[in-house]
């Protein structure tokens, strides 16, 4: 009996694969819908993508726009095989890749093989536009270089000259630390030391005491997600935020929401977008909030903008032919609620202004989700840095 139910379920699952007509423009979204990152992008991002399609009018070049959505469950094999399947069988025209750099690199290989424009929105790994770049990749929203650059430059220039890093002990943590350390030293600051903390440590207090012992002015948190939140909580509890300036190298609005302003106040961080920047962002945020009951993160706005940008490029090119659309994408100016002045560089980075923020104190916060004040708007060229030359498409 149980067995039969299982088999019927399975058959139903296979049959349900959405059918697209050849005349449709098919936009896909492969993201973490059920795991660690599902609040930062996840189902909310899918919603933002659909909002963009609705705002565009639901059709382009007279063709219906349809969407495909899948959960990669943070497994690169699932992400890559879904992508390949959609490209071969469902006439996929464009794919947005959500969180998780590992999955996105695997999907980028498929994008190159199947020649499908691919917009990673949410993975931080800068390698997507360096070693792992493709002619079809447009890296949206942010990367680790921009985040570390923004925060570190601003703090060093503001007088925070000596740094100590609390670094998640894996490739990603070292990348964040190195990117920030370079900026600190380039601006006349000094790195006094670093402690490498195992990922998902249950307690950060002893590492924080070591940071405090260094006598540095700034504590750079080269970690993300739950580790970032827990280290920030402990820093607050042990009074370390009183003697050292905390600087987050990768933090999202959802992290600050989890922490609460009492704990997070004074923290410096960099973001590609914030909901409370201007009337346009606020209007989008309100629409989004009505649907999802949360404020959008930079990933959510990035999904909206990426979808819109692709559709505009298709309209301008007059075709969905991948190479022609990519050429148009690299030619056009991007101006919407996400960014007033973005453009796609030859290596695939969508260059746009970044915002260096400081978290407000509970007193300064006047309404729900009023979390950040803008310290500095950093021009895209400065934030994303020069072309590295690691991507064969974009020699130095």
């Amino acid at each position, binding site marked *: 009996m149980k067995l039969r139910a299982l088999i019927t379920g399975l058959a139903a699952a296979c049959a349900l694969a959405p059918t697209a007509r050849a005349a449709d423009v098919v936009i896909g979204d492969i993201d973490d819908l059920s795991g660690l990152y*599902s609040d930062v992008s996840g189902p909310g991002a899918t919603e933002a993508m659909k909002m963009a399609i609705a705002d565009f009018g639901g059709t382009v070049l007279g063709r219906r726009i349809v969407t495909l959505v899948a959960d990669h469950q943070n497994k690169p094999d699932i992400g890559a095989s879904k992508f390949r399947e959609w490209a071969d069988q469902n006439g996929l025209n464009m794919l947005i890749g959500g969180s998780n750099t590992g999955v996105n690199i695997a999907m980028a290989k498929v994008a190159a093989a199947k020649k499908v424009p691919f917009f990673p929105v949410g993975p931080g790994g800068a390698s997507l536009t360096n070693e792992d770049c493709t002619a079809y990749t447009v890296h949206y929203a942010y990367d680790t270089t921009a985040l570390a650059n923004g925060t570190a430059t601003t703090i060093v220039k503001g007088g925070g000259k000596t740094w100590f890093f609390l670094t998640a002990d894996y490739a990603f943590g070292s990348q964040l630390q190195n990117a920030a350390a370079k900026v600190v030293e380039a601006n006349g600051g000094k790195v006094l030391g670093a402690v490498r903390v195992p990922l998902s*440590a*249950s307690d950060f207090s002893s*590492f924080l005491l070591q940071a405090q012992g260094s006598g540095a002015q700034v504590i750079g948190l080269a970690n993300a997600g739950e580790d970032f939140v*827990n280290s920030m*909580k402990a820093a607050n509890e042990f009074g370390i935020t009183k003697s050292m300036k905390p600087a987050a190298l990768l933090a999202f609005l959802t992290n600050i929401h989890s922490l609460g302003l009492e704990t997070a106040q004074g923290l410096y961080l960099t973001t590609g977008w914030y909901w409370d920047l201007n009337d346009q962002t606020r209007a989008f945020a309100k629409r989004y909030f009505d649907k999802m009951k949360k404020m959008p993160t930079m990933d959510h706005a990035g999904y909206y903008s990426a979808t819109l940008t692709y559709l505009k490029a298709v309209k301008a090119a007059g075709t969905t032919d991948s190479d022609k659309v990519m050429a148009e994408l690299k030619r056009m100016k991007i101006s919407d609620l996400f960014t007033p002045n973005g453009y796609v560089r030859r290596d695939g980075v969508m260059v746009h202004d970044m915002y260096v923020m400081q978290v407000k104190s509970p007193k300064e916060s006047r309404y729900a989700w009023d979390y950040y004040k803008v310290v500095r708007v950093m021009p895209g060229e400065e934030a994303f840095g020069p072309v590295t030359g690691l991507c064969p498409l974009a020699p130095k």
Partner: protein
Amino acid sequence: MTTIFGYPLVVVLGQLVLGLVNGSFYALLSLGLAVIFGLMRVVNFAHGAFYALGAYAALVGLNVLGVGYWPALLLAPLVVGALGVVAERLLLRRLHGLDPLYGLLLTFGLALAIEGTLHQVFGSSGESYPVPEALRGVFNLGFMILPRYRAWVIVVSLVVCFGTWFVIERTRLGATLRAATENAPLLQAFGVNVPVLVAATYGGGVALAAFAGVLSAPVILVSSQMGSALVIVVFAVVVIGGMGSILGAVVSGLLLGLVEGFTKVIYPEASNIVVFVIMALVLIVRPHGLFGRE
């Protein structure tokens, strides 16, 4: 400045205290595992999930029902313990008499289901639980700043661990429990309702996990995954202490907290694997654990 092995005394003392705090959590969690294993021969893989459930019970209590920290410290374990009793009656009971491996597999599935549900209901980013008013602020110990709440964690978990040990080793109830481990049918013949005893034990062990969950809620992010990595560490702790030994669970929990604390200073990169290395060493020297009997 006084130094120990080249490290300043103040650093060593500070890590000692912090290690004790973490050790207290390990001790509480491994104690619950040991109690359940001792009587039921079930390795409770869902322990970490119940720990998270305890923290969420406190959080929902505060945000939705207006129940504060102090009542939650008692109520959350009771609620979660009751869930444990239900799980035992509905699921684990059916595996009675089978290979204990099935209990491990069942609770593994249960853990996935509980953590998945928490994730679906509360989302992935987690939430913060405020430190109770009375325990805010810090003690200045001279060599370090110790938040009052961390001091409270040490005290209360030692009291609970000792209390549990006392009940099991020194009271009539405990004697009955231990008798049920040795020879359940005989005890049943004496008129003791063994199935109820077993269900209550599982509930009790799970309640200890939930208690640890409430206790940790103010210091770490409350999330659905908060217990999933911890449970493997606690497994190693229990193997080191000797499975089923109450004293072994508590002592090795505290000891490991300390060892881990020192590793964080000497070789921080290894601080999350030191537990497993020690487990391997203990297995080579004493396969039955530090306090285990053949």
